[in-house]
């Protein structure tokens, strides 16, 4: 690579995004950010060939999206770069109730995220950058201040408030919001990377993904692959909550066993299970889950998903089936009510789970799970199916006891914080 000098890489193998925070303990303003990381290397990747090299570098790094789907970022960049005047969207909407990583990252290192957005915009030759954030989020002021601090970049940056609904941050929902003012998902095709905002190709990346991209651009693909696993290289932010003494966000190398993250958060030793990926992720029993690596392939092999790296620890004195009934009822309430199998299927699944905890049958559940899965315009119903199915598996003993006529003693308890409107889901 003639004419390119990538910066000397930081030595820490797992404090990359959050580097500096652990030393100073304070969020990085622009000056601190520049001291720590230097400017975004836009000049290293100048011009048409430079853009192609940047995309190659991201491709080689194996960076995968950190917004839940884990799609290879390089491939997304390549697809969008083929179009005319694309738009870049920074997805900073963290609507997931048990995840706080994007908020933490944007509070501590907003400039790393914006660097990533500018580098991505440069790579695809975008005409604008839109940062999407839930309406009323206090981060709005932090981000506006960070954007104002910076000199003009390759594309103008603006903030877009998003209605505080769970599915409003889905990719096609963000595009729909920007095009029509309606924040509900749309049918695919066309996909946003083909036709999105204003009918132009649109790149949508999670805030953490862009921060990782900003590091790849500085230190290179080989450096990035220096930690993590073959199929999920690099580090990832995990949010650990629930039956833990030190809830919070940690950065770990991908492939780190779940147990390590639980120890960092000082999880209760008798916890019975962990919900991995988010509320629409999957339950894994403990102690089995402790040795499962936080990486896409290994988690998929167990029927779970890395999702947004959220880990919710279920205490011993709780019922996983009851918690899952609450989750599915919440997800049902968050349906955009556009597709039959979702708007009728999810409430039915919630009813089935509640029936089980009431000491009844829920006999339709297994069949309904197969019917609801994959039959919506977006993946919202699939998430509900996944978490319900994993509950039947992980809490099989409880399910058997309930079905044998023993109602749940933990009904009425709420462990996962689930707010809908102003009501807490029971």
């Amino acid at each position, binding site marked *: 690579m003639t004419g390119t000098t990538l910066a000397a890489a930081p030595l820490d193998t797992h404090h990359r995004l959050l580097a500096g925070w652990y030393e100073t303990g304070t969020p990085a303003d622009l000056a601190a950010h520049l001291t720590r990381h230097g400017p975004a290397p836009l000049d290293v990747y100048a011009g048409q060939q430079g853009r192609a090299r940047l995309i190659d570098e991201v491709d080689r790094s194996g960076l995968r999206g950190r917004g839940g789907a884990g799609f290879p970022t390089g491939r997304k960049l390549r697809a969008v770069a083929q179009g005319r005047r694309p738009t870049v969207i920074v997805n900073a909407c963290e609507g997931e109730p048990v995840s706080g990583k994007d908020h933490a990252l944007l509070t501590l290192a907003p400039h790393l995220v914006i660097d990533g957005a500018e580098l991505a915009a440069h790579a695809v030759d975008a005409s604008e950058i839109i940062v999407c954030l839930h*309406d009323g989020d206090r981060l709005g002021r932090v981000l506006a201040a960070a954007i104002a601090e910076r000199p003009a970049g390759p594309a103008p940056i603006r903030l877009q*408030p*998003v*209605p505080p*609904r769970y599915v*409003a941050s889905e990719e096609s929902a963000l595009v729909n*919001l*920007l095009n029509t*003012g*309606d*924040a*509900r998902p749309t049918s695919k095709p066309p996909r946003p990377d083909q036709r999105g905002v204003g009918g132009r190709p649109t790149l949508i990346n999670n805030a953490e993904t862009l921060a990782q991209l900003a590091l790849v651009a500085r230190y290179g693909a080989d450096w990035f692959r220096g930690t993590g696993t073959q199929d999920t290289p690099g580090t990832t932010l995990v949010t650990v909550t629930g039956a833990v003494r030190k809830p919070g966000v940690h950065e770990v190398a991908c492939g780190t066993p779940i147990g390590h993250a639980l120890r960092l958060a000082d999880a209760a030793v008798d916890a019975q299970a962990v919900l991995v990926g988010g509320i629409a992720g999957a339950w894994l029993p403990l102690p089995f889950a402790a040795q499962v690596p936080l990486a896409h392939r290994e988690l998929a092999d167990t029927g779970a998903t890395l999702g947004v790296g959220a880990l919710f620890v279920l205490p011993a004195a709780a019922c996983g089936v009851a918690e899952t009934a609450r989750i599915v009822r919440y997800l049902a309430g968050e349906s*955009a*009510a*556009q597709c*039959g199998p979702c*708007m*009728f299927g999810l409430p039915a699944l919630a009813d089935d789970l509640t029936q089980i905890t009431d000491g009844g049958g829920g006999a339709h559940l297994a069949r309904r799970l197969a019917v609801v899965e994959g039959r919506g315009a977006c993946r919202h119903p699939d998430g509900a199916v996944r978490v319900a199915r994993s509950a039947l598996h992980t809490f099989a003993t409880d399910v058997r006891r309930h079905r044998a006529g023993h109602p749940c003693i933990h009904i009425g308890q709420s462990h996962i914080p689930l707010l809908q409107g102003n009501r807490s889901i029971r």
Partner: protein
Amino acid sequence: MIGLWYVSRAAGLLALVLLTGTVVLGALTGGRASSAAWPRFAVAALHRNLSLLTITFVAVHVVTAVVDGYAGIAWLDTVLPFVSVYHPFWLGLGAAAFDLLLALVVTSLLRTRISPRLWRAVHWAAYACWPVALLHGFGIGAGDTQSGWGLVVVLACLAAAIGAVLWRVGTSHPDTQARSGVNEKAWSGR
């Protein structure tokens, strides 16, 4: 040539009956009416076939009226409302209804090739086409449709269409209820 004039009058009344039947079946299709003997695809197919029969008789009605020459109706008068020498208002209504009918049939024949929104918008115009056609028939028919059996037919058409629309408005499917229950404000922003 005067025989064609009577063919036109008869075809006109028949076309009104067929158009009414088409509208009634359209309302039944939208309202998901069906029975053991009449599955929904059959109701929909009958609606479509009846609409083609309707436009055929409307064409006969229009062509014979012009060719006959009795009333001096020009070809342009059949599509441009209110410019005719013969009963400009009542004939004009007929021209307007004919225009709408042409739009309905053309968009429906091209249904899978045009945008679904355009097709729906034009199809809703059917609820405008029918009353205009009825008024045209009632007004221009004079003695034929304002007394005797002609009036009975016109009133029967009126009753059938009103009944169908009332039924349609009264039915409600869970899908429609679920969608209309959405709080649009909760999803809007820009």
